[in-house]
C-alpha cells in the first residue's frame, strides 16, 4: 500500500471484516438450522454456506496481508 508510510494494507482490514462477519453469519445459520426464518428459500440455508465463504476469504486475506508482511 505505502512506501512512504508504513501503513497496514487495506486488504488486511478487508480480511478482518470477512472473518468476523463469516463467523457471525455461520453461527446464525447453524443456530436457525432446525427452525429457519420466515424468508423465501430459507430451506437452502444460505447463511451457512455464505458464512463459510466469508470465513475462507477472511482467512486468506488476513494471512496474506497481515501486518509485518511486506506486501502490497
Amino acid at each position, binding site marked *: *500500500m*505505502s*512506501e*512512504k*508510510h508504513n*501503513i*497496514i494494507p*487495506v486488504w488486511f*482490514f*478487508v480480511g*478482518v*471484516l*470477512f472473518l*468476523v*462477519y463469516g463467523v*457471525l*453469519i455461520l*453461527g*446464525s*445459520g447453524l443456530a*436457525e438450522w432446525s427452525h*429457519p*426464518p*420466515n*424468508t*423465501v*428459500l*430459507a430451506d*437452502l440455508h*444460505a*447463511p451457512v454456506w*455464505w*458464512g463459510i465463504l*466469508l470465513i475462507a476469504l477472511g482467512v486468506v486475506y488476513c494471512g496474506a496481508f497481515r501486518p509485518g508482511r511486506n506486501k*502490497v
Partner: protein
Amino acid sequence: MTAILGMLVAERLAHLSAVDLAIVIFYFALVLGIGFYLKKFAKTGEDFFLAGREMTAWVAGLAFVSANLGSLELLGWAGNAYQYGILAAHWYWIGAIPAMVFLGLVMMPFYYISKTHSVPGYLQLRYGSAASGLSAITFAIMTILMSGVNMYAMAVVMKVVLGWDINFSMWVSSLTVGVYVAAGGLFSAIFNEVLQFFLIWFGALLIPILGLYETGGWKGMVARIQQNFPGQDFTHMWGPMHSFSSNPMGIHWTGIVFGLAAVQSMGYWTTDFLVVQRVLSAKDIRSAKMAPIIGSFFKMAVPLIVILPGLLGLAVLPMHLVPGSQVGPGQHSYDEVLPLMLVRYCGPGLLGLGVTALVAGFMAGMAGNVSAFATVWTYDIYRPFIKKNAADQHYVSMGRWCTIIGLFVSIGTAYLAMRFASLMDYVQALFGFFIAPLFGTVLLGMLWKRVSKAAGFLGLLAGTVTSITLFFLMKSSPHWVAIFALSPEAKGLAQAMYQSLWSCTTCVVVTILVTLVTKPRPDEELRGLVYSLTDVAKEEHASLFHKPVVWGMAALALLVILQIIFW
C-alpha cells in the same frame, strides 16, 4: 441503545436480531477505528487531500468505483430498473465504460503530470481564475447537494427495512463519516471505500443468486415479468429504443448514444472531481492510467447487484411498486425495491450484512462527496480567493473543518431532496447543470492549444446557463419537452440526456467562437497542460499484459459483447 432504538421505531419490514445488530455495530466500529488509525499518517496537504499519492492501481481503481457506488446508486438504480427495465443498465455500460477507458488512456496523463490537486485546479492552470472559480463553486454546490441526496436515500432504507426514524439514521451515519474523513482525510476515505466495495458486493450478491434460483434462471425471470406486465419490454437494451414511445423511459437511441455516452458519462467520469480525486492518489502515472480501467471491469459487473434485483422485483414481488410521489398506505416506491428484495431472501445474519452494505454504500458516497468538497473548497476557493500563501498545516486544518461544515450543510440539503418526487431525476439534473459543459471546457483545453482563457470561461458559463434554463423550461411545460427532448414522451431521465447534450454543445460552440476572436496563450505557458505540447511517458518497455491500452481495449470488447447479448 436498545431503548433509544425502540423509541424511534415506527413501522418496519424486518426486525434486526442480536447478530444483525452486532454486524452493524462492528462495521461502525471498524470504519471509525480505521479513521483514527490513519489520522497519524495524514499530516501534510498531500497526505490529507491526495492520500500521499501512493495508492496502487488496484486500491485507487476500487476506490474510484466505490466512491460512485453510494446508496443513491444502489437504491436509485435498482428502482430505475424496476421502473424502466434493463434500459437502466445503459448507465453502467455504454454510459460508463468508454468514459472510464478514455479517462485512463487520454485524460489522466494531463491531470497527473500537471500535479494538480483537483479538476478546478487543472482549469486554474489552463484557463486562469475565472473558469476555475466558476467550476469550483458549481462543483462545491453539486457535491453538497449530492451528499444530501445520498443521505436521504440511506435514511429511506432504514425507514423501510427497520422502521428507524429518518432523522436518526441520517445523523448517526453522517456524523460517523464526518469523524473518519476529518481524521484521516483521503487516506481514510479511500481505505473505507475499498472496505465498503467488498461489503456492498457480499451484502447484495445473494439477492440476484437467490432471485434467479427462485425464478428458474434468466428465462424464467423474463417469463414472469411478461406475465406480470404484459405488453411491456423490460429485458432488452437497444431493441425498444427505435422510437420514444416504444420503451418505458420515453427515450430514443440518440439520447443514449449522444446524450448519455458522448456527453454526460464522459463529463461525469472524466471531470467530476469526486471520482477523479481517487485516481489522482495513484503512486505513478501507469497506476493512474490503470486505475480507471481496472475500475471499468468492476463497474461492468455492478448491474448484477443493482439492475438484476430491480428486474427480479418485477418478476417476484407480489405488489406493484409506484413512483415516490404516489405512495399511499401499504404501498412502496420504486426506490424501495432493493430493500424489499433483501427482506424477501435474507434472515438473521444475512439481513444485517445486507443492511450494513446499504449503509456502507451511503457512507462511501458521502465520504467521496465531503472529501472532494473539502479539497475543492480549500485549494480552489479558499487558497486563491481568501487566504493565499498560508502554511501547509493551515490548509490541512481548513480541510478538516470543511469536512465537518460540508457534512452539516449536506444534512440540510437532505431535507431538500425529500421534496422531489424522483430521486434520480433530481441528481441527473444536477449532473447536467455542471458536468456536461465542464467536459466540453476541459476536453477542448486539453486537445486544442489555441483555446484562450476568456473562451474557456465564457464557454463554461454559457453551457451552465443553458443547462439550468433548459431544466426549468422542461419542468414548466411539456411543450418545451417536445422541443428540447425531441418528444413529449420523454421522461425525466430522457430529458436529462438531451439537456446534457445541448448544454455541452453550447459550451463547445461558444468556446470555439470566442477562441477565434481572442488571443491565445503562449506555448511555453501550456506545456504539460495541452496534448500537442506535452511529453506523455510511453510504455514501450512494458509487456502487453502491463499496458493500460491493452486492458482498455479488453474492457471495450467486453462492453460490445454485453450489448449484443442483451440487445
